[in-house]
């Protein structure tokens, strides 16, 4: 007996729908939690780059009427030389396991709901499966090295398979040796950097726009003060000890740069590593990188994290920064991916990573 072919349908929900609020019917797998999750809904409504209330923010796929998958989008800006173009960032792709054989992901990833409103697309923070999908879609993929500084050795031993009392003992002994390093990095700022004042602020100042937009790179996702404020003020899943912070760096009262950090729980299920409180430097900018470099800003960021943080990380594609980081006991531990899609097909040079201002905090990474 031939199996009845399932009926796959797609629904699109706009910014206007999000503002008015809506529920997702026939949703036994909670695909629509992105709508009912108040933090996520707030984040999407507060997006500073919405110019058209009909911008589609949620594509929902159904199989025989049951909510089976979703993808979200939010407006961003793409700077290409002197042009600034409306683009979109992708977020929260999900397909319920039992429906994956119906190629729902194809429907979600190739939707054209915002085709006439956006000229480029961005994505970030992908798993290997996500990257394979982006490769199949011929999107430009940028890679940056993830650099990590351990503050708590627990995850190293968990990765090696230790559990229970042995894990606790090994961690306790190893952490004794980590403490002097932690002390040096937290309390012994190099003399050259002591001339700078680092201040956490609640309102992102407008002067950062000049630092971001004129940093010498031809292409970037625009992270101006509005975007940075939006990311600072929102988290998709707020939890205790999790936070976003924005800091200015000044010298003699003059702004010299900034950095932004997040504190989140991150675990690696495949390696039995339980969630660690991870501090990340997700954005940074300097008025003059010859004077205040990327690693200088990371170095200034290290003491700003909570004292009970387990790990500090940042990403970079700059060889000099990697070298300096390793000299300060950071180790390379994976790769961060950022994807880009040029819908205009005009920007052939945009495949060259060297022309891009890239940061850990691209697309929805900071709010995630």
């Amino acid at each position, binding site marked *: 007996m031939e199996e009845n072919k399932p009926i796959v349908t797609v629904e699109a929900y706009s910014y206007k729908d999000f503002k008015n609020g809506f529920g997702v019917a026939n949703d036994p797998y909670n695909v629509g939690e992105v709508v009912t999750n108040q933090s996520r809904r707030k984040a999407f409504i507060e997006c500073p780059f919405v110019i058209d209330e009909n911008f589609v923010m949620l594509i929902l796929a159904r199989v025989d009427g049951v909510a089976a998958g979703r993808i979200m989008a939010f407006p961003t800006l793409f700077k290409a030389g002197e042009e600034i173009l409306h683009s979109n960032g992708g977020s929260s792709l999900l397909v319920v396991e039992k429906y994956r054989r119906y*190629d729902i992901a*194809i*429907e979600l990833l*190739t939707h*054209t709901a915002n085709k006439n409103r956006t000229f480029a697309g961005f994505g970030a923070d992908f798993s290997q499966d996500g990257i394979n999908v982006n490769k*199949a*879609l011929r999107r430009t993929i940028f890679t940056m090295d993830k650099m990590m500084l351990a503050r708590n050795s627990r995850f190293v031993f968990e990765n090696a398979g230790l559990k229970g009392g042995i894990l606790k003992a090994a961690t306790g002994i190893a952490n004794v040796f980590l403490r002097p390093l932690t002390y040096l990095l937290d309390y012994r700022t190099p003399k050259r950097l002591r001339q700078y004042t680092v201040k956490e602020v609640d309102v992102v100042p407008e002067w950062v726009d000049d630092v971001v937009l004129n940093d010498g790179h031809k292409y970037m996702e625009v992270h101006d003060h509005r975007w940075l404020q939006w990311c600072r003020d929102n988290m998709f899943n707020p939890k205790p000890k999790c936070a976003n912070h924005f800091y200015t760096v000044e010298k003699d009262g003059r702004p010299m740069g900034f950095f932004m950090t997040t504190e989140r729980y991150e675990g690696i299920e495949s390696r039995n590593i339980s969630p660690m409180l991870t501090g990340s430097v997700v954005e940074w900018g300097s008025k003059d990188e010859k004077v205040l470099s990327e690693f200088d800003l990371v170095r200034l960021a290290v003491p700003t994290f909570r004292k009970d943080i387990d790990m500090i990380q940042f990403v970079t594609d700059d060889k000099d920064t990697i070298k300096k980081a390793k000299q300060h006991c950071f180790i390379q531990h994976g790769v961060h991916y950022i994807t880009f899609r040029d819908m205009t097909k005009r920007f052939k040079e945009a495949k060259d990573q060297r022309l891009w201002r890239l940061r850990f905090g691209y697309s929805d990474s900071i709010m995630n």
Partner: protein
Amino acid sequence: MELKDFVANFAEQFEETDASEITAATEFKKLDEWSSLIALSVIAMVDEEYEVTIKGEDIRNSSTIEDLYKVVLSRK
């Protein structure tokens, strides 16, 4: 836009299937190597080579490569 070129471009999306096995009459979804990833790469290929947008529904509703070719041709 020639059918034979379309078939050749289609065949290039497969890594393990011999190109000689792929013809206009091939029921592509029955090929062993066929997967969602290859479907996505076909969609991307059509967009890049022919500047035509096709979606999952177009792939679902096509049995042979020639069926899909006709869809793409109709949108050029």
